């Protein structure tokens, strides 16, 4: 397996640290004028999402991690596993609820999301930045009160709950930013 020295560390590089695959977030060279050189590195643990800060001696190296991001179509959930398919090869992968994590509440069948593979198996799932989903439950719209610009919670078809303007009704489809769970607007009817 290839390894990388501290001077090759850069944002996005995937390496192994303490047995876990990590993505380098930041690498800063630190050297007192008359002292030893260090690299102060921020790494995101790809299993837990936690960001670690670690100091290395300059010149130390880490093994590369066999991690890659793939665009895949979300197929279905069989009650235990989420199934994804690579659109080019039709190769299918299954991921458990822990792996899918928070992404689950945004996954709609046939949407394309990013599946991170580690040694060939799904490690994490990132939903598309913007999704279009139907409102399945919300309090009735309050007409005439929209000038106040208030919001109310709405449950979407995938289970996510987002804040929406008061005038929206059950059955409408809306566009949401999955990174912030923010309502972006009514989805345009095609």
């Amino acid at each position, binding site marked *: 397996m290839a390894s990388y020295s501290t*001077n090759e560390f850069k944002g996005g590089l995937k390496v192994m*640290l303490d047995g876990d695959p990590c993505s380098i977030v930041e690498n*800063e*060279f*630190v*050297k*007192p*004028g*008359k*002292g*030893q*050189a*260090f690299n*102060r590195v921020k790494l995101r643990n790809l299993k837990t999402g936690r960001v*670690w*800060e*670690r*100091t*290395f*001696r*300059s010149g*130390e190296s880490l093994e590369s991690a066999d991690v890659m991001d793939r665009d895949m179509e979300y197929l279905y959930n069989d009650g235990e596993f989420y199934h994804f398919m690579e659109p080019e090869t039709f190769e299918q992968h299954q991921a458990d609820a822990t792996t899918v994590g928070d992404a689950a509440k945004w996954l709609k069948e046939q949407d394309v999301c990013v599946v991170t593979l580690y040694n060939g198996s799904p490690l994490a799932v990132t939903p598309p930045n913007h999704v279009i989903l139907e409102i399945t439950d919300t309090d009735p719209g309050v007409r005439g009160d929209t000038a106040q610009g208030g919001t109310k919670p709405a449950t979407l078809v995938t289970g996510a709950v987002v804040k929406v303007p008061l005038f929206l009704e059950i059955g409408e489809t809306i566009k949401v930013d999955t990174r912030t769970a923010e309502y972006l607007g009514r989805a345009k009817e095609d």
Partner: protein
Amino acid sequence: MSDALWRPTAPLDNLRCRASLLADIRRFFSEREVLEVEVPVLSRRATSDPHIESISAECSGDKAYLATSPEFGLKRLIAGGFGDCYYLGKAFRNGEAGGRHNPEFTMLEWYRHGWDDHRLMIEVGELLSRLLKITRVCSYSYRALFLQMLGLDPHRATFAELKACVSEKLELSFEPAGRDECLDLLMSHYIEPRMSSGITLLYDFPASQAALARVEKDEQGVPVARRFEAYVGGMELANGYWELTDAAEQLRRFEADQRYRQENDKAVRPFEDRLVEALIAGMPDCAGVALGVDRLVMLACKAERIEQVIAFPIDRA
């Protein structure tokens, strides 16, 4: 990156700021009658400093090295009786690249005949106040700052105590190998980021980090290096010495450096024996200091990274 690599990384305003700082530096020394001199950038001798690497070159079929600082040439001029002088130009250090480092950089270094480290430290404060328009100058001994920030006496703490302090404050991928590595880690990772935005002058370094400074006993009877550093807003800017003038001691330190290099699988290159010869011939008492000019420009134009003040950093050079 799709950025065109022929393009400069520094905006024009920052290069204007650099040009005006260089002019201000030259005016400062001209007013004080310190002579600007040039010394070799290409030399047959290299640094022996265990933590600084020279860049090798080839000249007339023989090995040569790019100077890691102008100190050897300047001291030979002092020994030659040339009086107060300064160098403002390029220096080179292999492998040093990052937000505050470029392998090729601009250094200001000057020497004051008959001065000690404390007198020169005051002049460094004056230069920085004038160039950066900062009035707040604080000075501490290395011990006082460690005591204040970490409750630890850096000269007396045991290796075990220092290691415990490091592991409480920082996450490392390695075991610190000695007291100095612990001190370097605490200084660069813990103390520097917590320094004030003004000018901080730090003096009386551990004797083990003396480099080319004299070692003398401080008021507590502990041997300390008569060396100082200047920081602005936690950024290390300058390093100065009350210069060692004892030829035998200088030779011992060069040889110790070379031994350390050999034992630690680092390149062993010819050291500056002509400085030892100059010291044997006799060098007057003097103090000298080196200052990183690129970082000064960074501070003056509030740049976050060194490539914002260098037209073509190493990736585009």
